[in-house]
């Protein structure tokens, strides 16, 4: 089919004003928060499942790639149209369809912003727990696509632990339901397969999420350290003692400096590292747990512990943490984040190796990460306009992921593979493993129209 005709058909399906194809639009839908770039052939803003289905059917018939997109904040090229195609931007499908308190579920359209849902629920005393640092802009469709995690996922689990079911559009436009409000469904866990598949297996058009009661009490502490090693050892020790805090986040001095330039979060600029430790649960017992954590911190040479006195102070501590990635471009124009995960006991050793990589290549590296999960996020700082420095940064990133893999960890904790981490898939999977994945992909998307070129290396 000619491009003009395809565009006309799209316009018939969703309305003229909901199809974009100017030079500007196609360029802008070519990026996400990673450093990758591509170019779409058309952008569609669907308003309903039926419209998504029509567009996907057309794409299937014509063999046109189709890329689902929320807010485009993923960090791995997941929404970059590497082979052109139609980008489905879900900004119009942004309604919270049902809040079912007795069954502890909500049903949402994929374009709902994560924080909007959380704010609405909190007013009723409920919580949707997964809280990626990008929650104020990320969409639930994107969270599902990436199986996103966040600080509180240490205690509550990542996105997949909260998705009960979804209405999905399959490769040929068929609409079907997977899972449902029941907490457990017989047969294969297809929902589990789709969460984290980065839009390569199906497109979610409605999502049923699990909600829980908001905790009765919260205690947020900032533990300040003069050495990263002491901070890391504290992390392993807390977990080893059987305490599961709501969060255990670490930040080093490079990141704290960048954050403090942006907002006054109150981080100590002369410290080597801090931990943000949050405990939550029933009021009774929280003090006891806090005392225990304090004692562990002291055992590992904590310099000082500050307790957030009120909600405003707590919000400030978190605002700084959540803006950390963006803030580092105050130090250098660009960053690349290595989302490797390692066993917690290996943290001190791996962090040292990461810093060695930085030294070897003369690159500034900042660290801010979900320490409790052993999910590192070394941020390599550079200027992408300097081709040589960019190449060095990419080499360093790959080496860091290799270090994580060799330490018994993995190459992505939560940011996905997209196209940026394709090569590194070989660090953790054998050719047989990858072939199994390809078979699944072929079974669910025989013509390779759903976000082609992502996740599995050829």
């Amino acid at each position, binding site marked *: 089919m000619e491009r003009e005709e395809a565009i006309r058909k799209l316009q018939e399906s969703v309305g003229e004003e909901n199809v974009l194809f100017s030079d*500007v639009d196609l*360029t802008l839908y070519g990026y996400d928060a990673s450093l990758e770039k591509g170019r779409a052939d058309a952008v569609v803003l669907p308003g309903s499942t039926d419209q998504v289905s029509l567009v996907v059917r057309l794409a299937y018939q014509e063999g046109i790639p189709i890329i689902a997109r929320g807010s485009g*904040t993923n960090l791995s090229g997941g929404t970059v149209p590497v082979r052109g195609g139609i980008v489905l931007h879900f900004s119009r499908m942004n309604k919270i369809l049902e809040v079912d308190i007795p069954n502890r579920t909500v049903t949402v359209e994929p374009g709902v912003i994560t924080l909007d849902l959380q704010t609405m629920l909190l007013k009723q005393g409920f919580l949707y727990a997964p809280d990626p640092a990008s929650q*104020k802009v990320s969409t639930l469709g994107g969270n599902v696509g990436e199986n996103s995690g966040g600080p509180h996922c240490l205690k509550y689990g990542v996105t997949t632990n909260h998705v009960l079911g979804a209405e999905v559009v399959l490769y040929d436009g068929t609409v079907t339901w997977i899972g449902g409000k029941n907490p457990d469904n017989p047969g294969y866990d297809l929902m589990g397969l789709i969460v984290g598949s980065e839009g390569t297996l199906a497109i979610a058009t409605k999502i049923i999420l699990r909600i829980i009661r908001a905790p009765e009490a919260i205690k947020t502490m900032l533990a300040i350290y003069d050495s990263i090693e002491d901070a890391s050892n504290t992390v392993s020790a807390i977990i080893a003692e059987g305490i599961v805090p709501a969060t255990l986040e670490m930040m080093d001095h490079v990141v704290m400096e960048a954050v403090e330039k942006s907002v006054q979060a109150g981080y100590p600029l002369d410290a080597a590292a801090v931990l943000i430790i949050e405990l939550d649960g029933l009021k009774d017992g929280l003090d006891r747990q806090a005392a225990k954590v304090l004692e562990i911190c002291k055992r590992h040479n904590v310099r000082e512990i500050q307790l957030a006195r009120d909600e405003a102070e707590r919000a400030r501590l978190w605002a700084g943490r959540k803006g950390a990635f963006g*803030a580092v471009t*105050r130090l250098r*124009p*660009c960053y690349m984040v290595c989302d490797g995960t390692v066993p917690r006991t290996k943290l001190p050793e791996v962090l040292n190796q990461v810093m060695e990589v930085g030294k070897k290549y003369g690159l500034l590296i900042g660290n801010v990460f979900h320490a409790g999960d052993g999910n590192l996020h070394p941020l390599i700082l550079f200027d992408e306009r300097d081709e040589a420095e960019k190449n060095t940064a990419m080499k360093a990133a790959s080496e860091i992921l290799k270090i994580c893999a060799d330490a018994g960890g993995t190459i992505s904790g939560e940011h996905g593979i997209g196209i940026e981490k394709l090569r590194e898939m070989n660090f953790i999977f054998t050719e047989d493993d990858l072939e199994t994945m390809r078979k699944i992909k072929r079974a669910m998307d025989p013509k390779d129209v759903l976000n082609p070129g992502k996740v599995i290396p050829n």
Partner: protein
Amino acid sequence: MNLVKLRKFTYEEVTRCNRCGFCLPSCPIYLVKGIESATPRGRNAITRAVIEGRLQWSGEVEKSIFSCLGCGACTANCFPAIKTRDIVFRDRECLVSEGIYPKIADRLAQYILEEGNISNENNEERAEWQELIKGIPEHYFEKEKADVIYFVGCVASFFPLAQKIPASMAMVMEKAGVDFTVLGGQEWCCGYPLIGAGMPDKMDALIKHNVEVVERIGATKVVFTCPSCYHTWKHFYPSGAEYLSASEFLVELLREGNLELKPLDVKVTYHDPCDLGRNTGVYEPPRKVLSSIPGVELVEMEKNRQLTTCCGGGGNLEMVEPELSGKVADLKIAEIQATGADVVVSSCQQCLRTIAGRARRRKIPLIVKDITELLAEAMV
């Protein structure tokens, strides 16, 4: 402005935009339109692509760049604090020199340069609002010499809905015994609309004239009820007299005890105008004025101060795309209604016009007042 200059002033800045998207939910234009070219991130990316030769100036670029309110909400939510507003205004200058811009701007520039105001009216008509005050002779508030100049601004001078602002402000100053004057036909547009139109180079004559008038009158203070005039004088005019927003000046008067106030039993919410709050840093004075009136209860909107949502009237949008501007006003009206306040108070004639105008068109019962108006009501 041309590409070479644009590159010099903005390339480093746009490169630091790391496309994190944290600005998206704060941009009213994105909230209404839901497309990437309406996001601050998109505007930065367009600018970068043009500088790098990946995009050309075009009508599509114009659409994105001229549909920005200049409200600055993006920067307030951006960790590297990318100044998209400044970037957009520089882009507009480039687009103007390329001849790709909303042609209505030419008419605006013509009015300003020929008549001295945005309304294509005889500039002497600036004094018209004084007729709202009963029992004073014509040109009552115009003097040869005075300590304080009250710079009224074009919108409050010529738009009937906003004329109550200068009337209230003048009454308050009169009651407080301030030695002040207004400039009548000697007041020329401050030039702000030309910045938004991408034609700041045309401002020079206006600045020169206005500054000369201030010197002739020998004033030590110039007071503004219009946040955009105030912002423009503070940032683009040479320093001379002290420039004060109305609420800063009113706080001084209240502190000196020159105003006697009676109680008003009313629950209000306060809308921070972008050019007064976020873009010039005046947040507390208007709140102090409100709290000085007995009986006034202030309930804040969820997004206030740095995080305020624009009324929809910024950046010349109302002129270029009135319907889009109205849809932004809808967002603001919803925020106002959520507070349960009886009255929304602002300190800007443009906010007042945009919010009240939209509410009226959509038949939403909403009382919108300027802070000077509320204070005038409370005066004994």
